[in-house]
C-alpha cells in the first residue's frame, strides 16, 4: 500500500506531454543487496522525472545508497536553516545485518517519502544539492559522500548538547558564558514546549502501535497452532465430531494467514507513519537548536559591536593612529552583525511558515494513516467473521 506522499509541485504528467506546469517527480525503487558481511549495504534505484530547466533532462536514473541520502539531508540542513528538513529512517546497525525483506521495504518506503517531500517543498526543491543527488553519477556521489563526513557531520554529543541547551536553562559551558542567551518570546517558548512534549506523546503511541503489530503476529501464530491441534484431535475422534474439529482447524489456519498479512499492513501503513511523525518532530528540534545558535551569534555580535563602539570613541578622542584600523574592524563587524541578524530573522520567518505547513501536512498524514488502520482492522474483523460464519452450517450438519 503506497502512502499518498507522492505529491508533486504541479500536476503529474508524463515528461513528453507539453505542459507549462513545472513538476519534479522522484521515486526510490528496486532495493538490491550488495557487498558481503559487515560491508553489505542496500542500493536503490532513484528515478527522476522533471521539466525543471535546471535539470539535465526529462528523466534520469541513478543508483544511491543510504549514506547518500544522509549526505543530502545534512547538506540541506546546513543550507536551509529554519526549514524542517524531512526526516530519514534510522541508521539501525543491528537490523542491517538481518536485512529482512520487511526491513528493506520499510526503508525503501521511508526513503521514497523523504525524497518526495524535498521535491515537493517550494524552497528545498530548488536546492543544488538535490540536483546533484538526483543526477550525479555514482563515482561523483561517492567522492562527495566521503568528503563530507569530516566537516558537516555533527557528532551526536554536540547535537545532544545543543538540545540540552534549548531544553533546560543550563548555562552554556561551551561558550563560557554564565547566563544562557535565549529568546524571550512567549509564543516561541510555547512552541518549543509543545514540540518537546509532542515527541513524548508520539513516541508512546508509536510504541503501542509496534506492540500491536506483534500481537497480531502472536495471535496469528496461536491460531495456527490451535488449528493444527484441532485437526489432530479431529483425526483421532473420527466421525462427525472429528470432521467438525478438522473443519475448525482448517479455518483457524486460514485465519492465521489473514492475521499475519494484517500485521504487515499495520506495520507499513500505521506504525511507520507514526515513527515518521516522531522523526519529523526530532528534525524540528534540530531546527530549534539552529535557531538558538543563530540567536546566540546575533547577540554575541551585538555585544561585541557595542564594545567596539566604545573602543572606537575612545580612540577617536585620543586621536590615536589606530583609529583607521578600528574603523575598518567596526565596519566589518557591523556587516557581520547585519548578516547574523538576517540569518536569524530568516530562520524565524521560515519557521513560522514551516510550522503551519507542518501541522497541516501532519493532519493529512495522520488522517491517511488512521484511515488505513481502521480499514485494515475492519477488513480483518470482517474476514474473521466471514470465515467463522461459513463454518456454522458445517457444524450444523455434524450434529444432526
Amino acid at each position, binding site marked *: 500500500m503506497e502512502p*499518498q506522499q507522492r505529491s508533486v509541485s504541479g500536476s503529474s504528467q508524463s515528461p513528453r506531454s507539453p505542459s507549462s506546469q513545472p513538476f519534479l517527480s522522484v521515486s526510490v525503487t528496486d532495493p538490491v543487496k550488495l557487498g558481503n558481511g559487515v560491508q553489505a549495504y542496500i542500493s536503490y534505484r532513484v528515478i527522476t522525472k522533471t521539466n525543471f530547466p535546471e535539470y539535465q533532462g526529462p528523466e534520469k536514473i541513478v543508483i544511491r545508497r543510504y549514506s547518500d541520502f544522509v549526505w543530502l539531508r545534512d547538506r540541506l540542513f546546513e543550507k536551509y536553516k529554519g526549514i524542517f528538513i524531512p526526516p530519514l529512517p534510522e541508521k539501525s546497525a543491528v537490523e542491517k545485518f538481518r536485512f529482512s525483506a520487511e526491513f528493506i521495504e520499510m526503508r525503501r518506503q521511508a526513503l521514497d517519502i523523504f525524497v518526495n517531500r524535498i521535491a515537493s517543498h517550494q524552497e528545498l526543491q530548488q536546492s543544488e544539492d538535490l540536483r546533484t543527488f538526483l543526477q550525479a553519477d555514482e563515482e561523483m556521489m561517492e567522492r562527495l559522500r566521503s568528503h563530507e563526513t569530516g566537516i558537516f557531520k555533527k557528532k551526536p554529543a554536540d547535537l545532544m548538547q545543543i538540545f540540552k541547551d534549548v531544553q533546560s536553562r543550563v548555562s552554556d559551558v561551551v561558550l563560557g558564558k554564565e547566563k544562557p542567551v535565549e529568546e524571550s518570546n512567549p509564543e516561541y517558548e510555547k512552541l518549543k514546549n509543545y514540540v518537546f512534549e509532542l515527541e513524548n*506523546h508520539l513516541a508512546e503511541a508509536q510504541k503501542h502501535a509496534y506492540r500491536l503489530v506483534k500481537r497480531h503476529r502472536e495471535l496469528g501464530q496461536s491460531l495456527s497452532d490451535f488449528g493444527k491441534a484441532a485437526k489432530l484431535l479431529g483425526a483421532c475422534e473420527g466421525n462427525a465430531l472429528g470432521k*467438525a474439529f478438522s473443519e475448525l482447524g482448517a479455518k483457524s489456519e486460514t485465519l492465521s494467514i489473514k492475521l499475519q498479512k494484517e500485521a504487515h499492513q499495520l506495520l507499513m501503513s500505521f506504525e511507520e507513519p507514526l515513527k515518521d511523525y516522531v522523526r519529523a518532530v526530532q528534525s524540528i528540534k534540530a531546527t530549534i537548536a539552529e535557531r538558538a545558535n543563530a540567536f546566540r551569534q546575533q547577540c554575541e555580535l551585538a555585544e561585541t559591536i557595542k564594545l567596539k563602539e566604545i573602543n572606537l570613541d575612545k580612540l577617536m578622542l585620543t586621536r590615536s593612529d589606530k583609529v583607521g584600523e578600528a574603523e575598518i574592524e567596526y565596519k566589518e563587524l557591523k556587516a557581520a552583525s547585519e548578516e547574523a541578524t538576517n540569518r536569524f530573522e530568516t530562520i524565524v520567518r521560515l519557521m513560522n511558515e514551516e510550522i503551519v505547513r507542518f501541522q497541516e501536512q501532519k*493532519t493529512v498524514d495522520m488522517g491517511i494513516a488512521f484511515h488505513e488502520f481502521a480499514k485494515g482492522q475492519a477488513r480483518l*474483523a470482517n474476514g474473521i467473521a466471514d470465515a467463522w460464519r461459513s463454518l456454522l452450517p458445517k457444524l450444523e450438519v455434524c450434529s444432526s
Partner: protein
Amino acid sequence: MMGSENQGFEEAHLYASKEEMENLVLDEPLNDNKSHSNYRSALSSLADTHHPLSPPVAATPADSDPLLAPPSYSDFGNPSIHDNSYLDPPSYADVTFSPFDGDTGNDINGIESPSKSSDNSGSLSRSPSSSSEYIKITVSNPQKEQETSNSLVPGGNTYVTYLITTRTNIPEFGASEFSVRRRFRDIVTLSDRLAESYRGYFVPPRPDKNVVESQVMQKQEFVEQRRVALEKYLRRLADHPVIRKSDELKVFLQVQGKLPLPTSTDVASRMLDGAAKLPKQLFGESAVAPHEIVQPAKGGRDLLRLFKELRQSMANDWGGSKPPVVEEDKEFLERKEKMHELEQQLSNASQQAESLVKAQQDMGETMGELGLAFIKLTKFENEEAMFNSQRVRAADMKGLATAAVKASRFYRELNAQTVKHLDTFHEYLGLMLSVNGAFSDRSSALLTVQTLISELDSLHSRAEKLESASSKIFGGDKSRIHKLEELKETIRVTEDAKNVAIREYERIKENNRSELERLDAERKSDFLNMLKGFVLNQVGYAEKIANVWTKVAEETSGYVRESS
C-alpha cells in the same frame, strides 16, 4: 462521533489502574498431572474488578464450574438462530453468553442468562437422560471449626467446613432441599467409597489433597479455591447418571453430623488385621471370604493375595505360557488405545487453547493501551492548539482512540467467553483420569481372576499328587487323606471365590462398555456445543469490532486521494 465526548475519557479511566491485568500472577500447578497454571491465571486475571465478569476462578484444572459451560445451541434465547437463517445472517451482536447459574451472580454485561429460569440441571448443558430429574448442589459458607477430641497439639487443630446445599426433585432423597456441613476429609472418604463401589465406572476424580501448612490452609484464597473445587466435584458426581443415585452420595448430602461412611484412614487396624491373618494365609489354611475378592488387593490387608497377584502378573508378562484368561475383547483394546490417543490430543488441544486465550487477551490489552495513548495525544493537541489543523487532527485521533478502546473491550469480552467454551477441553482431560481409573479397575479384576485360576490349577495338581501318593499305600495314609480332605475344602472355597471374581470382572466389563458409550455420546454433544459456541462467539464479536472500525474508516475516508 463527537457526541461521545466523555465516553472515551471514562473508558480511559476504566483502564487507568489496569496493572492488575498486567500482573498475571502465575499459581504453581496444584495438580501434579497437568499444569494449566498459565491458563488458570489468565482466567483469574480476567476477573477484572471493573467488569462484572465471573468471580476469580481457582487454579486447579479440575475446577472449571460446569455451570459456566456455554448453553447448548438449542438453549439460545434468540429465536433467529433457531431459524437457520444463514441466508439472512443474524446479527450476533445481541448474543452474549452467560452461565446458567444465577446464584453465583454471573451476569455478563448485565444480560441475564436465557436459561436461568430453566434450571434443568446442575450439569453440562445437555439434558440428563431421565427427563426432568435434577440435583443442584451448592458449596458455600466456609467456616473454621475446632477439633474437639484429644489433640496432641495445644490449642487444638482447626479445620474448615463447608455448607453443602442440595436442591433436588429425585424422590429417593425424600426431601427437596437440605444442607449439611462437611470437611474436606469427608470428601476423601466419599471418593474412596465410591471408587470401591463403582468399579468400572468413570468416577469423577476428587480435588487434590494439597498437603500444605495449616497457615496456608486457612488463607482466604486457598479456602475459596477449595470451595470451588468441591462444588465442581459434587456437581460432577450429581451429573453421573448412576452415581447420582448412589447411597454413598445420598448419605453424604443428607445425613447430619458425622459422615457415616467407613473411613480409609484406619491403616493401623488394617495392618494388624492383615498381620493376624497372614500366618493363616501363608499356611493355606484361612478361607478367603468370597466378598473380599470383590475388592482389589490392598496393602496391609491382603499381603498374601498381593504377592500372589504380583506373581501372576509377572507370569503374564514374562512367562512362556498364556495366562488362563486374557483380555480377549479386541474392541475394548482398540477403544483403550483410542482413549489414550484421545487423551494426548486433548492435552495438546487444551494447551493450544491456553495460548490462544492468552494471545487474544494480549491483543485486547495492547489495543486498549494504544487507545489510551491516543486519548492523551488528543487532549494534548486540543490544549496546545495554535492552528485549526491541530484541532482537526485531534478530532481524528479521538475517533481512532474511542474505536480502539471499544475494540479492546470487545476483545476482552470475547476472551472471557472463549475461556469458558474452550474449557471443555480441560473438562474432558480431567475426565480421562476417571476413564483410566475405570480401565485399571478392569485390569485388576482380571488379574484377580487369573490369579485364582492359577491358584486352582496348582491346588488341583497338589490334590492329584496327594491322591496318587496315598493310593500307593495299602490301606490308605491317614495323614495324607486328612490333608487331601482339607485341600479339597480349600479348592471348593477357592472355586467359589473364582466364580465371584469372574462375575465381578464381567460386571466391570459391562460398566466399562456402557460408560464408554455414554462418554462417546456426551463427548460428541459437549464438543459440538463447544465448537458452535466458540464459533458463534467469534463471529459475534468480530462483527462488533468490524462495525467500530468501519465507522472510523468512513470518517477518515476524505483523506485518501486517488492514487496518481
